[in-house]
């Protein structure tokens, strides 16, 4: 695949069935992702039942171990593996029809490094050597193998990114002067963001945690480690969100039979995500000491900038639906709603993700609002928030994608029956999540803390009042677990579905004479701007932390 293809041959290649070698790569990622989801889901179910006072855990497993497993498997493993699998599939599909050998090789190297890291990390967690939660805050000290496992996952993901960059460069070389297809542009943007933001967690893990946990250094600077983590931790959520947006911008319009509303604005949104999702980590540290208020507020302002591409996306989605509906004769303000394929899981699941993003995003704006953060920090409100964002908006979009992606790459059919099962699974998820998340938001406002096992704080009256909400959370969590089981069954059925052709839906743009500004694809420019913004937002407060550094903290194993 390292030779140039003529235009028609390229189109033919892209319309054809998936190359089996690419299919293996994609499927490996997707299946590992859902394996992690299942394991993480078992943990989540047990957590919900514990906090609801329904069960006590047997000896041999602790609440906080389950919580660590749940966070790592759901928020790091399920997400990263699905995203990389999905991005590789789209790169293959819309750039040449198949991956170059180099890209595929890098993809496998990345997969195996990440898989080994995942296995190692999971073992550490389950053997109670890393009960530090997925944020692994210092100076709690896990086994060095846990941090090494994390490093393997991150470095593996870099290899995956290089494969995607390599395939992109190959296509650009063989298609000189052409604008990259939208999916690939967005995939590159996503992995570029990932590369930039993982530097933070890589530095703290490699330079601070690993030597410290091995005993090579005595002390660790806690505020520096937290700051490096959250430099990574905020853009991490955009690493999750951008692939979901790829589905919304590129796939969903094709599924409904419409066109992409605006190619240029879609690319602009992704550039804005690259720029403004990085220099904002302090909004996760608003209640911490050691950061001057003016720098907290500055990063709050930058955080609000990153809301703008989502406001653009909201308009683009509604506009896509309305233009399609009106082209079919829809009348009135909302007549176009009737023309949407509600019974098609490839639309319905991502759409529910979009809908839920309304309260999800609203909650996020509140969280980032400087001193308002004290109302919600570390309460169950935050847990409610991220179960709407990553665990519904992103997850449902990924589920809705899997229903066609798995048969598309394996040469099987998304049958009407499987489609219906998918709709049911989606509805069960939404019901479970609304019950659980609404309860979490409410009891969080009443003060109930997150990341805490069952307690009534010695029967403190308000704390007793939180328990009924936690019972409702257990109900919601159980319903969600049922949905996970349904999903796993559906995936098994998809893998055994009748052979055939399932479309890989990639939409065309509605524009006719409009050209997308080429500046949007100048990656060097945008990467440089991110560097400038990061230096602007972090240099002074970070320097102050270094300057005022105390002796640091020794390791603590408090579990």
């Amino acid at each position, binding site marked *: 695949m390292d030779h140039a293809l003529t235009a028609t041959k390229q189109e033919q290649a892209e319309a054809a069935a998936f190359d089996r070698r690419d299919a293996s790569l994609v499927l490996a990622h997707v299946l590992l992702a859902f394996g992690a989801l299942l394991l993480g889901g078992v943990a989540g179910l047990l957590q919900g039942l514990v906090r609801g006072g329904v069960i006590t855990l047997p000896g041999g497993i602790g609440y906080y171990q389950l919580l660590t497993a749940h966070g790592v498997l759901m928020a790091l493993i399920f997400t990263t593996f699905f995203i990389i699998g999905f991005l590789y599939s789209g790169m293959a599909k819309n750039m040449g029809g198949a991956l170059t050998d180099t890209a595929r090789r890098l993809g496998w190297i990345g997969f195996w490094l990440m898989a080994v890291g995942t296995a190692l990390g999971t073992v550490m967690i389950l053997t109670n050597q890393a009960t530090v939660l997925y944020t692994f805050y210092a100076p709690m000290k896990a086994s060095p193998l846990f941090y090494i496992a994390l490093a393997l996952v991150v470095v593996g993901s870099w290899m995956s990114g290089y494969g995607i960059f390599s395939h992109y460069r190959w296509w650009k070389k063989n298609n000189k002067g052409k604008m990259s297809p939208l999916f690939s542009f967005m995939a590159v943007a996503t992995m570029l963001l990932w590369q930039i933001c993982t530097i933070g967690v890589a530095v703290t893990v490699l330079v601070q945690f690993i030597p410290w946990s091995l005993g090579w250094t005595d002390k660790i600077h806690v505020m520096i480690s937290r700051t490096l983590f959250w430099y990574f931790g905020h853009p991490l959520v955009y690493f999750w969100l951008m692939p979901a947006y790829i589905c919304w911008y590129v796939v969903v319009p094709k599924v409904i039979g419409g066109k992409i509303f*605006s190619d240029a604005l879609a690319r602009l949104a992704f550039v804005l995500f690259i720029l403004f999702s990085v220099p904002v980590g302090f909004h996760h540290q608003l209640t911490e*000491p050691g950061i001057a208020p003016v720098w907290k507020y500055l990063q709050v302002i930058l955080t609000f900038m990153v809301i703008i591409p989502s406001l653009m996306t909201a308009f683009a989605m509604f506009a896509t639906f309305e233009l399609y509906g009106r082209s079919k004769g829809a009348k009135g303000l909302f007549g176009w709603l009737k023309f949407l394929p509600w019974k098609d899981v490839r639309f319905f699941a991502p759409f529910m993700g979009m809908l839920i993003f309304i309260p999800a995003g609203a909650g996020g704006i509140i969280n980032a609002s400087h*001193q308002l953060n*004290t109302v919600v920090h570390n309460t169950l409100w935050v847990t409610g928030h991220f179960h709407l964002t990553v665990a519904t908006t992103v997850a449902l979009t990924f589920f809705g994608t899997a229903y066609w992606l798995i048969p598309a790459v394996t040469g099987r059919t998304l049958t009407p029956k499987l489609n219906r099962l998918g709709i049911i699974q989606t509805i069960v998820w939404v019901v479970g999540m609304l019950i659980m998340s609404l309860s979490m938001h409410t009891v969080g406002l009443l003060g109930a803390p997150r990341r805490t096992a069952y307690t009534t704080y010695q029967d403190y009256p308000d704390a007793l009042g939180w328990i009924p909400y936690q019972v409702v959370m257990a109900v919601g969590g159980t319903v969600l677990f049922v949905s996970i089981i349904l999903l796993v069954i559906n995936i098994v059925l998809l893998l055994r579905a009748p052979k055939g052709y399932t479309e890989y839906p990639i939409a065309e743009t509605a524009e006719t004479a409009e050209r997308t500004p080429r500046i949007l694809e100048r990656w060097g420019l945008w990467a440089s701007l991110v560097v400038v913004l990061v230096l602007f937002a972090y240099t002074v407060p970070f320097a102050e932390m270094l300057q005022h550094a105390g002796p640091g903290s020794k390791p603590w194993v*408090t*579990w």
Partner: protein
Amino acid sequence: MHIHKLEKIWLVIGMAMLAVFLGIVGVSAFAQGMQPPGGGHHVIDPDKVYETPPFDNPGLEQIGDKEYNAYVVAYVFGYNPANMEVPVGSTVHFQLTSADVVHGFQIPGTNVNMMAVPGEVNHFSHTFDKPGEYLILCNEYCGAGHEYMATRIMVK
């Protein structure tokens, strides 16, 4: 780049709304003193907390009529001092640090909600207008006893 007229209007409205939010919290924080917890640098050796003033004498220190400093050390799994007591209407200036790992310090029903980070001292003030027994709980996972880590502050 062409942007549809209605999208332009939406984005202007959206950005104006965000600007209003930023303005409100900005004015409230910088002009009216309602900042989040923190307040710059106050460094301490986490291994020598109990030897370093003011935490060598943890507890309440009255500095005015109905005004107190509270020097609090968080540790696994409690707070020193435990069970504080102040008269109703008191303003308490909490100064908080940790003797070991990161802890939280949250008083449900109030805006008191801050991190106790070893090596740093955190600051936040609150006026207790209503009498009662307030719960102080740790809302940042700190180990096996995390869900038991709490104390009370009585406001009489």
